[in-house]
């Protein structure tokens, strides 16, 4: 299969200059797709022939669920002009219901968002976990790592873990709430961002829905709202200014902690209320394999070389192991990982942090370092099984596009 990427102005530039131009992290006419292929080591050519090439409609971080009508206008225009197109974002996941709607409605449409799926729910859904590539490609992200962090200072680390939450979301708020509900809140390196408009009805509803996937008392919710009102923004000191293309954490958050407690974004479709098909307390393995989401929040600490546990979508840690990463089960408990209920998963995850034992870290130090190096090599060595898997995944996606 010879891969050709379509251009209509100049090779290397994006084909769509429209409503989506300011939705990508890089400004127009930058196109990320060929950079992704470069990092994966996939050969391609440029073509201005619509018939034999891959046409990419890059929507960046455009909020699909809120602007579906607008998006459909563009999809129709592009399908009319180019025939087959890939609705593409290397930045965000798109909700399953929206993907299903669009794919069922438009026969020549393919969708490639940043999820990973072993068995996608639709034959023209061709997801790819782009953040792995973004963090390794100099055109997509500026990744500032610390050449070497302190791991052997087991007697002088100040905190058990760090937990970074730069942007407010209901799941990060819930994590903060449960961290503060127990003994962990005061003793660890934790950041938190207050929401902008505390009295917004939408905000209150989102919190209510998140906490009430199994009904809780009014008194309990009042306590939650009080916490929302009173908890201040907590930032790292010192830190650098955050922006999407620049990935950086200060060295001390690694030097002073034993592990990273990662708050990965929760996908709305994987919450109890949004998926009525689930009847058990634990998510099925099939569901995990088909709905994996990973962002720089998880990848960066692994790359930096730190033990980690992820509070994210159900099965996040399971899936990392499935992708070849090693978990740190000598020192960290991941039993919460498959719990389907978001609140329960967060509660159990936070609870499991209370039992962390510094002595175990010291005892297993050599094994931990071996795992750290293994994970780093898995992420950074372009000949690792991870990168071979990613390359094959993209080739399979492109084959589906060409053969369909």
């Amino acid at each position, binding site marked *: 299969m010879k891969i050709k990427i379509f251009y209509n102005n*100049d*090779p*290397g*530039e994006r084909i769509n200059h429209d409503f989506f131009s300011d939705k990508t992290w*890089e*400004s127009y*006419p*930058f196109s990320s797709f*060929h*950079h992704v*292929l*470069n*990092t*994966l*080591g*996939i*050969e391609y050519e*440029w073509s201005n022939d619509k018939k034999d090439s891959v046409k990419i409609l890059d929507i960046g971080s455009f909020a699909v669920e809120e602007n579906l009508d607008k998006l459909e206008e563009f999809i129709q225009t592009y399908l009319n002009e180019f025939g087959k197109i890939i609705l593409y974002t290397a930045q965000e996941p798109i909700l399953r219901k929206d993907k299903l709607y669009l794919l069922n409605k438009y026969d020549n449409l393919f969708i490639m968002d940043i999820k990973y799926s072993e068995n996608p729910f639709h034959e023209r859904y061709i997801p790819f976990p782009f953040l792995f590539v973004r*963090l*390794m*490609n*100099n*055109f*997509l992200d*500026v*990744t*500032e*790592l610390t*050449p*070497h962090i302190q791991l*052997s200072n087991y007697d002088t680390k100040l905190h058990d873990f760090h937990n970074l939450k730069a942007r407010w979301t209901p799941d990060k708020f819930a994590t903060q709430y449960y961290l503060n509900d127990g003994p962990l809140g005061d003793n660890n390196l934790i950041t938190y961002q207050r929401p902008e408009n505390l009295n917004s009805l939408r905000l209150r509803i989102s919190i209510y829905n998140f906490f009430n996937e199994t009904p809780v008392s009014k008194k309990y919710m009042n306590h939650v709202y009080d916490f929302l009102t009173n908890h201040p923004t907590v930032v790292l000191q010192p830190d650098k200014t955050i922006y999407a*293309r620049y990935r950086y954490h200060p060295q001390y958050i690694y030097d002073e902690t034993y592990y990273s407690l990662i708050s990965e974004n929760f996908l709305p479709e994987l919450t109890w209320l949004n998926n009525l098909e689930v009847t058990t307390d634990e998510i099925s393995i099939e569901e995990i394999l088909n709905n994996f989401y990973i962002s720089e929040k998880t990848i960066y600490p692994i*790359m930096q*070389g730190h033990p980690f546990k992820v509070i994210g979508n159900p099965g996040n840690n399971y899936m990392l192991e499935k992708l070849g990463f090693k978990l740190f089960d000598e020192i960290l408990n991941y039993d919460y990982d498959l719990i389907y209920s978001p609140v329960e998963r967060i509660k159990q995850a936070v609870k499991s942090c209370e039992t962390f034992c510094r002595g175990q870290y010291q005892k297993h130090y*050599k094994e931990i*370092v*071996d795992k*750290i*190096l293994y994970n*780093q*090599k898995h992420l*950074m*060595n*372009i*000949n*690792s099984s991870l*990168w071979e898997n990613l390359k094959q995944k993209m080739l399979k996606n492109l084959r589906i596009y060409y053969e369909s």
Partner: protein
Amino acid sequence: MTIKIFYNTLPGQKINGLKQEAGIWEHPPYTSFHHILNTIGIQYEWSDNPKESIVVLDIGSLPYETQSEKIDSLIEDYISKFGKTILFTSQEPIHPEKIHEVLDKYPELFVMDIRLSNNPTHDRYIPFPSLFARLTNPFCNILDLHPIVDTWSVKKPNTFNNLKWRWTPDKFATQYALNKCGAESQAIISYQKPGDHYSSEHLNQIIYDMTSHRYDMTDFNDKIFPGILKFLHSMPTISLKDDKNFNVLYRYHPKYIYDDTYFTLVNENFNYGVDDLEDPISISENYFYISEKTIFPMLQGHPIFVIGNPGTHYMLDQLGFEIYDEILSYDHDLIIYGMDRVERGCNNVKHFDVADYEKYLIQINKKIQHNQKLLTNKNSKLWSKLKDVMETNIGKYYEL
């Protein structure tokens, strides 16, 4: 062959010898060797058995040319303790004469500096152009590229950019030649005056050595050289506006130096002398040197014109890079005499005509993309070659 890297404290950390090394850009216990293997895609394991594994003595930027006593002492320490050792730097080239000197002195030593050699001149000289790997590995360098620069405009305020961060005689010679031929006024230029650590006598000597390396010495001593010295004293430091602080681990250029110019005049370090009777091609094939100065503008996507060691473009061509001969003459490239090469290069730059750029706009942009892809696509001919070179090097280490 299972490649094993030796450690004596912890895997992933540099070997603790009896004496402290210095000059590595990153703080100990950092070591870059396995990061380079990762970027090239070579699998390896860690081992604490020096007999079956690769022992790396990383000297960073410690120059063998002036610090041979200290480095010899480190080598002896390593060899006596671990046996076979690679004297390794992923940061600097070592002068060819010194490579032979140290290899002849220590039969269990291998040398891996940052050159590339098609025909290594010693069976234990195993160079590797590490800057290709360093620039794309976030553990070795932070690379701050601009997602896109303007290479399509034909109404740019300047013809070229020419950055000269640290004073060296070759950069000074370029500044002098650009000024003399009148090309300086068309360019975005940076230049740094020589530091105070140079004595006047030493400075005059190294400038003399550089600028007198020419075929025709008529009037040089009486007229030309005094003028050169006068230029040295009158030329001020020129910095880029809106620049960030220089740092060897952080690679960044402001966007306007690319948007506002048609090409980059790269001053690559002159780091080996070429005898007047030697063939520049065979010399460059043996000791090719490339640094971030050349790689960064190509990665960023800008046409380049390098004034460096003889045969630099010849070797870039061999590695698969395209040169921009529609708009620039590269006939300076194989000139043996250093000052003649610099002056011819500057004159070639002066003859750039924007009409040619406009005429060949599409071809130029195709070449830019070709070079970028060669550098960034991990399945490209360049990366396959780099992997082959490193595997051959490691094979030699294990076999000898």
